[in-house]
């Protein structure tokens, strides 16, 4: 049974600087608290920058509006990629790592100075990237900066600074765990959420080392020190950074799903072995998915493409499908144990839909799985990728995963960080109730609009597709759906940023008094520790509804996947 009380009392001494959280009874190290706050603030700042760019870009690709000129479109597209995929995600994850290696382990932050150095480097790198792209015309190279597109040396330097800073922060995560073990702060295994964050940290290490292998030579080439870079080798290393970066997001998101489920519904993991095995499948195989970007590249063999793109027999995908069952199943058992046993889905109907953490969790899981995951595996199929590469179907896929998936989960989680770590009252609570739905709804249209446009041949990263003169009239409709969806999503984004800024900038510092934001005064986190083995195994509490949900998911998956093979079979012969 899970316990809240620390297994070893903290030693009183110069090293310990902490407070007791009145709501969770966890100990919060003050260095960790400040680091979490700093990283979370920078995350929201870069999200805002990226979000402004998003609105302007979307209103340009929506051909009927076509807002920006070509130069500004490509410039803001570059910025959007950097601020969202690199800065927003990684800053938030660093906050998560500082949290997971201290607060959840009953431990102190053992390397705060190093962590601050990492944070400063990330901030300088991130801001420098924005400045360079905004003011240097030659640095309009997209976040991928594919060699031989050459940007200003400071462009590459900003990536390097950011990446090294992030790597330093990741290292402090591991230092904290080692010190926590040595100081007997916790006994036994890492909690599941920390195990998930650790998966993210390990993947992040590979990611950042690959980034160095791609960007450092590119930096030297931009300075004229290296004469020539092979574009194929650059792509191998760049995507060794770029795709695993998304898998870091995936692992962190899943860890946060478990956390949100425990905080809003009071779950216990159904089977620790099952969930941890799923994370381990990520660790071993998920980085291979980098090959998704290279499936129609010259020089690479079928064997390499097939083995890598399948994440080794789709074992990493199996990991995701395991979590996709585990989390709803855990919620179902917890809710059934509370008495909501009517039919297959009574438990789901009676979930706390007004609680932002719960709605964010569910919307994130559904969009990530049903749209992001299904499209991802499908378009990552070697041959099917020929229909997809560099069309708008690609951003359609990854906006469902990174934005509708990870970003919504992170946004939902932020609403708890504010009272529990920032120790400010969450303001604009009514907005918070609606925000996941607004943002999720907007992103749904964005993804669908992009996917349907891409299916019709619309290219990505393209200022004006009408130049091609081939796109059917229906493209105007699908791009409009994308544009309208973007406006709704941006409104959702503005709601989020407003809630965060209003809450942290106004009002007094206030110790949190309640875990749930709107749904009640009970404390699901504490309740989860009273869920007995007997209740978990009770026949009346078994997760039959969740099984139906995942089977339905699989049926949809099969339909989408097989349809794409059928589409492929109708095109020209090629080999």
């Amino acid at each position, binding site marked *: *049974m899970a316990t809240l009380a620390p297994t070893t009392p903290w030693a009183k001494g110069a090293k310990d600087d902490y407070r007791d959280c009145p709501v969770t009874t966890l100990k919060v190290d003050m260095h960790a608290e400040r680091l979490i706050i700093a990283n979370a603030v920078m995350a929201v700042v870069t999200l805002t920058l990226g979000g402004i760019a998003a609105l302007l870009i979307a209103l340009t690709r929506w051909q009927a509006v076509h807002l920006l000129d070509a130069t500004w479109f490509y410039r803001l597209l570059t910025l959007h990629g950097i601020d969202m995929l690199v800065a927003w995600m990684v800053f938030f994850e660093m906050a998560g790592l500082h949290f997971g290696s201290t607060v959840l382990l009953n431990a102190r932050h053992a390397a705060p100075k190093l962590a601050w150095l990492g944070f400063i480097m990330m901030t300088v790198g991130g801001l420098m990237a924005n400045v360079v792209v905004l003011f240097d015309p030659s640095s309009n190279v997209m976040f991928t900066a594919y060699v031989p597109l050459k940007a200003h040396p400071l462009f590459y330097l900003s990536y390097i600074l950011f990446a090294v800073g992030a790597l330093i922060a990741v290292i402090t995560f*591991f230092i904290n*765990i080692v010190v926590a073990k040595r100081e007997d702060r916790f006994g036994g*295994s*890492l909690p599941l959420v920390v195990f998930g964050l*650790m998966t993210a940290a*390990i*993947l992040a*290490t*590979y990611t950042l080392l*690959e980034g160095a292998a791609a960007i450092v030579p590119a930096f030297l080439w931009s300075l004229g020190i290296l004469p020539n870079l*092979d574009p*194929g*080798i650059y792509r*191998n*290393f760049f995507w*060794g950074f770029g795709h*695993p970066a998304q898998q870091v997001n995936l692992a962190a998101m899943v860890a946060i799903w478990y956390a949100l489920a425990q905080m809003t519904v009071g779950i216990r993991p159904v089977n620790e*072995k099952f969930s*941890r*095995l799923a994370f*381990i499948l990520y*660790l*071993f*195989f998920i*980085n*291979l998915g*980098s*090959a998704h970007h*290279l499936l129609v590249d*010259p*020089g*690479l*063999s079928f064997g*390499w493409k097939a*083995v*890598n793109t399948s994440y*080794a027999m789709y074992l990493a995908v199996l990991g995701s499908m395991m979590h996709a069952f585990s989390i709803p199943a855990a919620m179902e058992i917890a809710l059934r144990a509370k008495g909501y046993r009517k039919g297959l889905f009574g438990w789901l109907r009676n979930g706390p839909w007004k609680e932002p953490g719960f709605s964010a969790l569910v919307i994130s899981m559904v969009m990530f799985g049903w749209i992001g995951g299904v499209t991802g595996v499908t378009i990552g199929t070697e041959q099917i990728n020929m229909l997809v590469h560099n069309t708008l179907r690609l951003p359609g896929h990854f906006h469902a995963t990174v934005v509708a998936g990870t970003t919504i989960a992170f946004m939902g989680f932020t609403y708890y960080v504010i009272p529990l770590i920032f120790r400010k009252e969450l303001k604009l609570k009514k907005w918070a109730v609606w925000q996941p739905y607004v943002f999720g709804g907007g992103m749904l249209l964005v993804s669908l609009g992009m996917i349907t446009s891409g299916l019709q041949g619309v290219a990505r990263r393209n200022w004006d597709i009408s130049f091609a003169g081939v796109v059917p009239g229906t493209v105007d409709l699908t791009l409009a759906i994308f544009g309208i969806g973007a406006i709704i999503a941006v409104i959702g984004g503005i709601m989020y940023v407003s809630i965060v800024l209003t809450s942290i900038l106004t009002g007094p510092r206030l110790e949190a008094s309640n875990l749930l934001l709107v749904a009640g005064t009970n404390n699901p986190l504490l309740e989860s520790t009273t869920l007995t*083995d007997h209740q978990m195994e009770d026949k009346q509490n078994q997760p039959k509804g969740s099984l139906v949900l995942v089977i339905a998911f699989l049926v949809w998956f099969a339909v989408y996947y097989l349809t794409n093979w059928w589409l492929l079979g109708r095109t020209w012969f090629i080999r």
Partner: protein
Amino acid sequence: MSDKEKQESEPVSKWQKVFDNIWLLFLLSLLISTVIYNVWGIYNLLNVPPAP
């Protein structure tokens, strides 16, 4: 002895220990990714023959 006390005194499964071994998992993760994705991929690229 209650169920809980029995559980506390049983030795931890060796597989659980493997799952708990951060450094082993770290090493395998980096090794598998680097060999199957980077090394094999770059080997392919370096072996592209010159145009006839």
